[in-house]
């Protein structure tokens, strides 16, 4: 359903392709309307608007790898199609959930950095929600392990912090 609507109803401007160049040198062809969702690409296209042929433009995105971009592009594309229609928020939420459900923790972090760099705020919001959800009600040890954070407290400092509000450390999930 989604693919048929994109091919039939999209205006001519959105069918124009732009080439994005990832940090690892790969070139990815995307529709112009998708590329415009990425702040650095938008800025680049505006600066080079005198170029007659969009096809010839190559937008460098030196902070995002091809692997991440190839995850982001279909998401942004579908999300654009969804928000163009008068759909309920629930549907968008279901779509977001589906997208994030199977993301590994590492992928989550990579996408978050990319979404931040590319200025895709709606995705950033979703990713922050998911990360917060995953560390909700977890022990400090779990949070450290989950996010790969080095504990830089001395045992004394940590004990002191925990002693300040002992109740905050009760009743957390231990897994």
């Amino acid at each position, binding site marked *: 359903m989604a693919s048929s609507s994109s091919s039939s109803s999209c205006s001519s401007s959105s069918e124009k392709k732009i080439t994005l160049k990832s940090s690892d040198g790969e070139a990815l062809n995307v529709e112009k309307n998708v590329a415009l969702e990425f702040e650095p690409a938008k800025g680049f296209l505006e600066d080079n608007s005198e170029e007659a042929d969009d096809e010839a433009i190559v937008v460098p995105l030196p902070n995002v790898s091809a692997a991440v971009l190839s995850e982001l592009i279909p998401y942004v594309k579908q999300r654009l199609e969804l928000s163009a229609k008068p759909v309920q928020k629930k549907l968008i939420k279901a779509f977001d959930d589906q997208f994030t459900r199977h993301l590994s923790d590492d992928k989550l972090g990579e996408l978050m950095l990319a979404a931040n760099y590319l200025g895709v705020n709606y995705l950033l919001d979703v990713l922050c929600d998911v990360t917060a959800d995953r560390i909700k009600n977890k022990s400090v040890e779990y949070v450290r392990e989950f*996010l*790969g954070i080095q504990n830089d*407290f001395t045992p004394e400092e940590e004990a002191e912090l925990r002693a300040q*509000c002992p109740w905050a450390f009760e009743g957390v999930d231990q*897994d």
Partner: protein
Amino acid sequence: MKIRSEGGCRSRNYIDELSDDLLLLILYRLPGLLATHCKAVCKRWSSLISDPSFMQRSIRHHYHNHNHHQFDNDKYHLNFLYQYRKDVIWHLQSIPSFADVKPLLCSFKLVHIPKHSDNWYVLTADIFCYESGKWSQRRVFTRRILNSLSWSDSLVAYRGILHWVNCDQTIFACDPLKKPWRLNVIDTPADGKEISIGVCRGKLQMSQLQLDTLNPFADNSAKAVSLSVWELEDYDAGKWRLEHMVYLKDMVSVNSEDYLRMIKDARKPLDPVKMVKLLAFHPHDVDIVYLIFLKWLVVSCNLQARTLQGSRVQLSKNEDCCSLPCGNFCSIVHSWRPTPVSPLSFKHEK
């Protein structure tokens, strides 16, 4: 505890690459209690979560996701509010009101009463529980018309209950955290506007500034303004006692400044009553109240000795203080003598 086995071979530690702003976006989403315990994760997290603005922004984040009307107030500071009840912060639109000032403010409720009510007969309160990070809403119906806009006039927490002056010169009292939510009305002997309330010696105080039209000084000056102070002697019976009634013209300045003269010489003479406002009551001395002259000059006023003394602190003259409510000021004083000393414990050996 289950530690994931692949933890050691993580290719890239992205959380350390996140900027503070980005990391905060995640931390704001945690319910308050969890954010507190996440202080122990690492030094960076600890400093971010311990920042005084953290809680404020976290509450705002939860509020926006709660689909309530806008909660866009930057004016309140949770780290500098005075005590109301052990675990409750009152927040009324634009008024930083009451809070628990435990050094670790980690478990509390915040009550936000929106300024604009759709219905004059309905009072709405949004209550935030920091522990769960959730907002809920309560409503109370009343037969009286509520003045939805003059929250800023005078607002006081007394006996764990919020008190404010309504437009009909009565005092409304309610505790939105108590079920069922009831609105009590205390009648007052006052018969004009410019009523302020406060607490002194553990009793509710009320003051009224009035223009005495019978007075020969009734020109456009503050001299004709009278100040009355009542004390609510019997809270349950609603019995008031007039403590003081003075004319500003009878007041003598302790320092060389002639405050009344200053008011008279003010460039744009306003309504005399508007030139003087009661800022606060002294928490322990019923004879002392704090007035604000011309919207920028804070004056301590001894009603017994009939003296005025300007404070060294002056608000900027340019500052727009038109809407300065007395709720924005806290009286901070040293503990009243005798200083509370914990009782000696005598051990009688058997």
